[in-house]
């Protein structure tokens, strides 16, 4: 692991990645998140939530509610069930690290 004292000097993006770094690499998190951006990118209409720049906790919380069915949905629950909890964490961390104005993410 990276010594903790090194982290503050780097992008917040990296700090968020580091949470799941041991199981899911940053590149793999990026690849997993790319599945979401087909529908959820900064060019998405209001009907589809934009994910970039939202907090990891909020994103994980909503995805877990979709996955369990606590939060009703048309599509999201069906898709969320296809991902492990660790993958959902990594995807959420990836989007949390993006600026909300980042082009079409």
């Amino acid at each position, binding site marked *: 692991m990276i010594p903790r004292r090194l982290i503050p000097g780097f992008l917040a993006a990296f700090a968020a990645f580091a949470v799941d770094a041991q199981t899911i690499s940053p*590149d793999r998190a990026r690849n997993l998140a*790319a599945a979401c951006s087909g529908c959820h*990118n900064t060019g998405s209409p209001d009907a589809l939530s934009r994910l970039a720049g939202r907090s990891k906790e909020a994103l994980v919380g909503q995805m877990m509610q979709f996955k369990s069915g606590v939060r009703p949905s048309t599509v999201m629950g069906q898709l969320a069930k296809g991902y492990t909890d660790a993958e959902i964490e990594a995807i959420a961390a990836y989007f949390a690290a993006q600026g909300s104005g980042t082009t079409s993410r």
Partner: protein
Amino acid sequence: MKRRDFLKATAAAGAATRFPSVRAQSRRSLGRVIVVGGGYGGATAAKYLRRWSGGAIEVLLVERSAEFVSCPVSNLVLGGTKSLANITRSYVAFADHGVQVIHDVVTAVDGKSGKLTLQHGGDLSWDRLIVSPGIQLMHDRIEGYDAKAQETVLHAWKAGPETLALRKQLEAMHDGGVFVIAIPLAPYRCPPAPYERACQVASYFKRAKPHSKVLILDANEDLTSEASLFKAAWSELYRGMIEHRPNSEVREVDARAMLAKTDFDSVKGDVLNVLPPMRAGEIARAAGLITANARWCGVDWLSMESIAQKNIHVLGDSVLPAPAMPKSGHMANQHGKLAAAAIVELMNGREPDPQPVLTSTCYSFVSDKEAIHVASVHRYNAAEKTFEPVHGAGGVSPARSEAEGTYGWAWAQAIWNDMLG
């Protein structure tokens, strides 16, 4: 985390921020990738190759059409609620991503020397080639479906001028006429789309010419997608207007008499819309990429690289699908991202992601406002070397709804932005 991984992580984070052009100048070039076909697969791959290589891979996109016209949602043009302009998008944003777009047609591919030939623009060489040509319609599999017949019997299975031409035929048809749509055996491009088309045409008939009928001649033994949802829409929204005949493969058309013939029957229509069997796009055949049933291209699912030709990757509808993997626009978009990620790794001398996951969400409009969906998640199985649908994930709508109609149209805007924005 090891130092090497740590550096990789910061590089990835850097590439994801706002200064790709600065990074591009400071990094060595990894080579050139040419993408043939600017649809859901190819356009996505071109954009993400630039983004994920930090500009280190030169990307050329060869596309014959001046603009992108979407096959998904194009049935709404037939229904009359959307225009062709509503489903057309420009390629201009590719300049911002550093993708060079060449509007031309690839006439030959030489895998050995890594070169292709353009109809107008001469030869181009590549380090890796991506072929994403969609489908080729096999008109010759249906007797009488020759060039002359194709002037009046349309497929409209590639969105564009033919979509408008079919709409004009529907508008010109008299009230009380019959629209016949013939569906080939699966696999074909976009499984639910013929049934959606039946709904859209019936929706138009219901408003404009209520004595007319839709007859579906289906080569398959049942609907190939969302059967109960479509059947519910047909009986509840279009009672008596839509007839579905399973096990009815059209083997011959008579364009002069407007007849569609199966082994058992000859059916007269006022508008005939015959979808012939389909195979991988012509350039995939010319490049020697077809490996299955003389129709589809087998790939290594970790990279989308052809199993027949090294350094050539195939995307979208041309690919021999993994089990339960649909030939959908959304899936082609996912193929594009998988290939882009894998090619960046391969051109850096590394291995592709060994555990890719793909999703597909496909909306079908059953009326002017209501839609249904089918969704799936596909995970790579290393032992089987293929993707498998994730058990317990995915599914279809519980019922059609206006909410899903809103989501369906929003989906189109969003994915067009993802690939072209």
